């Protein structure tokens, strides 16, 4: 005999409404946080924007003592290291993506290398920088001596190499996925016409995944632009425009890291924050474009 149990409503409606409201509010909070981040950067950059205007980006003298803030050297440093890292990293990233997305999709080899790439992504930036300081720098010094350039060891070249290693996992994770998702029937059609695997990869797979690969590179670029610690430790930290790839330099992120806590004066701090605003905007634009491409690709 199933006992008769009376059910009470226990204020269900109230709890329901409270729950749904909490969910909605949390989502609004997320949006508000982002808007607040943007406006904080913007408002705190005003003093610098007002005082310097566009000069900020093409003036090459950064002299806090004289209250001069031209960020061109850092802009150059940022772009140089990021694009150089991208150039170094791309062939390897595409190779690894083909390895994991086409040749070794499953099995022990696949899992092992996937884990290795994931581990690469998990190593903290500061440890990359530390290792770079003690292992890469001496090597680069030797190279520089052979090439008869001043053997700083640190500089644009060294930081680009470490950046290339650091951004590899990010472009690989996306590119590997798009490559592995190429429909089998396309590949089989090519094979049945007598194509070799190499030809299928270069003539069918790569063209098909072009936009996905591009998005992967974009996201990697976005990461490179904002990367701070490893670069700070390996770039040489000078205020002048780098003259060659072996010269020391600075990136916007590393300048902020080095100078923000000791910055005195409203204009100094504001100039640093304006660089932060720049990084925020560029990283966001790249991020959104990359994600849009991915969305279009997976539809």
């Amino acid at each position: 005999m199933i006992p008769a149990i009376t059910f009470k409503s226990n204020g269900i409606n109230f709890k329901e409404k409270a729950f749904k409201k909490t969910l909605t509010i949390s989502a609004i909070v997320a949006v508000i946080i982002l808007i607040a981040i943007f406006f904080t950067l913007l408002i705190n950059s005003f003093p610098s924007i007002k005082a310097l205007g566009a000069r900020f980006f093409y003036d090459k003298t950064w002299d806090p003592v004289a209250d001069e803030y031209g960020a061109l050297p850092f802009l150059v440093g940022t772009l140089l290291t990021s694009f150089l890292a991208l150039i170094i990293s791309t062939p390897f990233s595409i190779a690894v993506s083909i390895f994991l997305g086409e040749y070794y999709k499953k099995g022990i080899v696949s899992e092992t290398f996937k884990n290795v790439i994931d581990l690469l992504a998990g190593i903290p930036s500061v440890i990359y920088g530390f290792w770079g300081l003690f292992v890469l720098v001496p090597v680069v010094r030797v190279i520089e001596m052979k090439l008869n350039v001043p053997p700083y060891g640190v500089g644009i070249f060294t930081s680009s190499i470490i950046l290339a290693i650091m951004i590899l996992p990010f472009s690989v994770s996306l590119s590997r996925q798009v490559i592995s998702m190429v429909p089998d029937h396309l590949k089989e059609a090519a094979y049945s016409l007598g194509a070799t695997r190499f030809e299928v990869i270069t003539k069918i797979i790569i063209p098909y995944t072009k936009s996905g690969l591009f998005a992967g590179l974009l996201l990697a670029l976005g990461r490179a632009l904002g990367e701070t610690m490893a670069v700070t430790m390996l770039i040489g930290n000078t205020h002048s425009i780098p003259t060659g790839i072996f010269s020391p330099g600075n990136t916007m992120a590393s300048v902020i890291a080095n100078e923000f806590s000791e910055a005195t004066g409203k204009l100094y701090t504001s100039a640093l924050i304006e660089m932060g605003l720049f990084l925020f905007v560029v990283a966001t634009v790249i991020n959104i474009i990359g994600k849009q491409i991915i969305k279009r690709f997976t539809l």
Partner: protein
Amino acid sequence: MNRHDSKSEIEKQIARRNRKNKRFKGVIIGATIVSTLPLLFILFYIFRQGISAINWQFLTHLPKPVGEAGGGVSNALVGSILILLVSCIIAIPVGIVIGIYLSEETKSKLAYYCRLAVDVLQGIPSIVIGIIIYEWIVRPMGGFSAFSGSVALALMMLPSIIKSTEETLKLLPESLKEASLALGVPYYKTILKVIVPTGLGGILTGVILSISRVIGETAPLLFTAFGSPFMTTDIFKPMSSLPLIIFNYATSPYEDWHQLAWGASMLLILMILILNIISKIIQRKWKVQF
């Protein structure tokens, strides 16, 4: 045209293409191996340098002034854990709730902007997060504090917790919700007592992975937690942390400090490895079948 001739022409061409094919595979494999070498070099080097630095004194003593031998990273170890604990307290509930919202609402305008906000947040350089928290918390508070560092790290953990929660819950079949609702279980209880517990494995995995990602972050702590030579558990004071001392000691000119930094690096890597292994175990054990 002599048929015999063109046949060997074709055979030659095919042989050439096959060679190219083999060479290409070799290049791909070679490039992949080269890409993994840095990992091996780094891990090997850190282990070699760090293993000699780790001993009981290392883990329990404070750093000694320059020149004095010995010393340890106890304050940084405690600092890292404490700062992380507070960030988890902030980020986990908020992240899961937002993740639940996004998994339930797919079409509303708010959901679209919320997702956009999360995506943008994920891409913000960590040094910029440091600036933000400095302006929001450090300045009003009048000084550096572990708490501000925790908030910075919490901001960085949010996107991955939100995304993994959303993705885990989205994978659950609709029939699960319907079964519960049809039994007369109110919506909020259905989510809290059926949907979330069923997806707990995936949510937990996401949380642990996000912890492993921020445990090594330095840039957001540079001008928030700032670091300290003292052992403290007061979260409203500046606090040391493993990545911070690695940065400071590695860039210093002193050999003993370099040693400490290697030890700290190895400690950090071990913690990250353990967290990753834990997350994989959870993923396997909590696999819910349908």
